[in-house]
């Protein structure tokens, strides 16, 4: 039964069920996400400055080692079973930054270790991150295409 075509009985039940359903505390979640996400970005910024001042990276080139470091930290936190707890608290705050992407890859790799390296880890590592990569690359392509066209037409 598709959820679109609901019978009157089903609609009536849905109303009754809604009365008791606990709602997500959206505002509270947004505030938590803002502060935790902000803190993660603050740490990222600190690491960027660290690479610029101590390892002679420039503002443009410091991005890659920063991302690698953040993912490394996310990997440790995932492995020690801390990242999912941060995730439950922070929601989008810990899911949106690059550490969330790292966590999705690493958690899947750990989860499927018991099915071996090839079919388990290899086959499942990107099961959550795969769609992020696919649609990330695709949207980058579309945006680049639009920019190129606008440049050709002399709009920008």
């Amino acid at each position, binding site marked *: 039964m598709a959820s679109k075509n609901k019978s009157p009985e*089903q609609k009536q039940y849905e109303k009754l069920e809604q009365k008791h359903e606990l709602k*997500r505390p959206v505002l509270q979640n947004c505030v938590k996400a803002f502060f935790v996400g902000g803190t993660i970005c603050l740490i990222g910024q600190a690491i960027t400055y660290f690479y610029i001042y101590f390892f002679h990276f420039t503002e443009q080139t410091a991005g890659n080692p920063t991302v690698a470091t953040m993912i490394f930290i996310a990997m440790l936190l995932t492995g020690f079973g801390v990242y999912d707890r941060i995730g439950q608290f922070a929601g989008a705050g810990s899911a949106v930054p690059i550490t969330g992407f790292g966590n999705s890859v690493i958690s899947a790799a750990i989860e499927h270790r018991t099915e071996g390296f090839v079919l388990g880890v290899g086959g499942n590592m990107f099961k959550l991150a795969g769609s992020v990569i696919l649609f990330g690359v695709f949207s980058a392509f579309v945006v680049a295409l639009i920019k190129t066209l606008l440049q050709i037409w002399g709009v920008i």
Partner: protein
Amino acid sequence: MLKGKQSWVFPTKPVIESSSAVGGPYEAKGKLASDFDILHDDLWMGKDSYEKAHTLLIEEAIETAIQKAELTKEDMNFMFAGDLVNQITPSSFAARTLAIPYFGLFGACSTSMEGLALASFLVDKQGAKKVVTGASSHNAAIEKQFRYPTEYGSQKPPTAQWTVTGAGAAVLSDNADKAGKLVTTSATIGKVMDMGLSDPFNMGGAMAPAAAETIIAHFKDMQLDPSYYDLIVTGDLAKIGQPVTLDLLHKEGLKIDSQKFKDCGLMIYQENQEVQAGGSGAGCSAAVLYGHLLNEMRKGTYQRILLVATGALLSPLSFQQKESIPCIAHAVSIEVHP
């Protein structure tokens, strides 16, 4: 013996000779820790995969139940068991080790009562002298199959439920000496209900109509008043499903005292444990009934209880394909024989 439309009464009153419950680390910190026979302090339980640990849970529960009845595996005519993993491998693999003639069941989280109803019917009709029945679930193995990797940092909504790591089992027999023993007296088999809810993070809400339907059918078939039971316990409806069920029952004119209406998913954990709406999983009702509730009955706290185990019959594929969640509930009444 059939009574009414969908209920069985068991005139010979099959005896629950013994029962056992096995739990994991999170259950060990819960409210009912003292009612478990075995508690594991680690989800791996010394095995190299969660699925193998899951198999161990049901194996241990069944072995412990048989031992407590002072019987051996060879005395068991049949075994009824089930779980939530694809193709119910943990139960079947446990049946391989135990070497008891086996019926594998799938009723999602209602499996515990599906097993107890069938086992009681079989013993009542002299199809078996001794039967063992059980159900189990393992948090990490089930989350892996139905949701995200355990370490993935997604935020669960307050309606989500925590899969219980646990198993429960009971040995039923046709023992003629019933005085003071626990017996099963009747069972009601539920039909599949679908009220169109499709959120897998709100199973309690989806299962409530099935629970209400089975409870209503039970009292109609048995021509009983809800006050007959000291306690009516649902399987894993948790914080949302339980009040919704009570609402549905009151709407139908069934006067159930909310003090006598409990839910295994709300009983197993402490308030401060982070389980969102409550516990769930095939092992939830099995461990709470075969551990805590039967212990309470042996102590004399309750004389008659009705356990209504509820199951959400979805698969990871069915909800990705935007199907709604069909649900089922089965009820078995357990009494202390005078």
